[in-house]
């Protein structure tokens, strides 16, 4: 199955790289938005922060929010393949059937990791975002968030009945989750009840992990001063498993009607 999934992922990569608009949206738009927000919010927000925390928040929030948009668009190619008949053609081959969803997961995860790397390296180069101070924790968080966002994209893409439905629903849900999850403004400045509501979204756990690393210099485990990222990552992995399970169920029910 892995071999077939890699063949399918290579196909999706080729199609993505030939779509210049998609490439621009995936890589340039998050950087532009993070630059604008980072510039507007730049400067320390308190002595407890280790670096230019406004920019850190801007790059974290773009890493979280824009990645979800990009990965929903990427996973949404399933809808196009279904309407164009290529999905059935793949299903008619002996090896592709079970690998189709796995291949989408592989390519969306790979794209996510590249996008996160580009975004944070840009932040480090031009906004002093402290990505190298705890590189292992940040890398782990990027990998886990790439998995969660990919599974989320697949769940949305397989739950929607049409591409238009996918675009409408995903925009609404991503913006809603980003607002309550702390991607628009730090949850720490919101009322307690708002912070609790936010915890129902993967965005809040991802933002918590990025904040703990980039604002407080946290590592995997808790210290006397600051909590670590182990709990947020564990919750994100759990959410990832649930989302991928849902994506698999939706895919079987709606894309392989038998």
């Amino acid at each position, binding site marked *: 199955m892995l071999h077939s999934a890699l063949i399918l992922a290579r196909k999706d990569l080729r199609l993505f790289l030939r779509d210049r608009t998609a490439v621009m949206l995936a890589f340039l738009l998050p950087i532009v938005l993070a630059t604008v927000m980072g510039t507007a919010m730049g400067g320390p927000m308190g002595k407890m922060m280790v670096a230019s925390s406004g920019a850190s928040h801007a790059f974290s929030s773009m890493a979280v929010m824009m990645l979800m948009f990009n990965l929903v668009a990427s996973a949404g190619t399933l809808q196009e393949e279904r309407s*164009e*008949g290529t999905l*059935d053609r793949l299903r008619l081959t002996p090896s592709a*059937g079970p690998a189709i969803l796995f291949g989408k997961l592989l390519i969306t995860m790979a794209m996510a990791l590249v996008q996160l790397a580009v975004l944070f390296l840009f932040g480090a180069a031009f906004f002093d975002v402290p990505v190298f101070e705890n590189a292992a924790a940040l890398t782990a968080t990027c990998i886990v968030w790439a998995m969660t966002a990919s599974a989320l994209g697949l769940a949305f893409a397989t739950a929607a009945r049409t591409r238009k439905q996918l675009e409408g629903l995903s925009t609404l849900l991503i913006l809603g989750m980003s607002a309550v999850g702390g991607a628009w403004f730090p949850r720490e400045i919101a009322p307690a009840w708002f912070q609790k509501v936010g915890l129902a979204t993967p965005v809040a756990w991802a933002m918590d992990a990025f904040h703990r690393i980039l604002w407080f210099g946290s590592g995997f485990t808790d210290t006397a001063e600051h909590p670590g990222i182990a709990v947020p990552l564990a919750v994100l992995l759990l959410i990832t498993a649930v989302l991928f399970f849902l994506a698999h169920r939706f895919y079987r029910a709606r894309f392989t*009607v038998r």
Partner: protein
Amino acid sequence: MQTTTTTSIESPPGTGDDALVVRGLTKAFGSTRAVDGLNLSVAKGEAVGLLGPNGAGKSTTLSILSTLLDADGGTAEVLGLDPGAAGPDLRRRIGVVPQDIALYGGLTAKENLELFAELYGVAGSAKRDRVSWALDAAGLEARSGSRVDTFSGGMKRRLNLVCALLHGPELVFLDEPTAGVDPQSRNHVFEQVEALHAAGTTLIYTTHQMGEVERLCDRIVIMDRGRSIADGTLEELHQASGGAGAARQLRLLDGTAPAEAVRVLADAGIRAEGVEAKRDLESIFLSLTGRELRDGSDADGEEGQA
């Protein structure tokens, strides 16, 4: 002359040489019975035309037999395997040419072929050979590196066909493989299908082009409302539908006046109402415009830039 067949002929019972045996196949979508007790058997190497009006159940039948859909009832054996259970084992041995152009427009012709070859398990030098064969068979060698979304409809149709043949299937389902293309490409696709038949591949061919079925198929099955309502050779269908009353078409050789032919027939005691000049438009078109494929000179904008 064309006659309308309304007589139902039972499909012969299956034998050990059957590529396909279907008994009492049913499939419903909600309250609509798309396939309703279909019986069908096809011998190995046979080319069977599956005809029927839109909604007759042809495409649903092909989807069931090619493993995409599960039947609600009845039994089916394709190359000795149950399509509902065999999955990959059966898919390795069959090819399906879908009605829609199911290709990746953002990939080149060669990339599309390589993708499907790899997914069918054709690798290494075999892959190179088969892709090269397919490009040649589709008449697309010169455009192998062009993106498919720059192709004309005919080029896409030809590529759509050969993508299903890369793994050398024993049985091929063809769902209107010549729909919506110019006569040159239609003829080219059809010649490829005829070559498959000549090589001993079993073919199940659905189309609305009666002439194609007459030219290609050993046997014809006519479906309506999910059932087979006629099954036999063209001659058998004529006879079963009351051949005595069927009109016949005479081909007059050059120099023979139609009126004289009618008079001679009448003198011989043969009733004839007249001789109607009838032309095979496709043959005339091909004789005037040639059989050469016209991929590079599409002036109406259908074909984009490579």
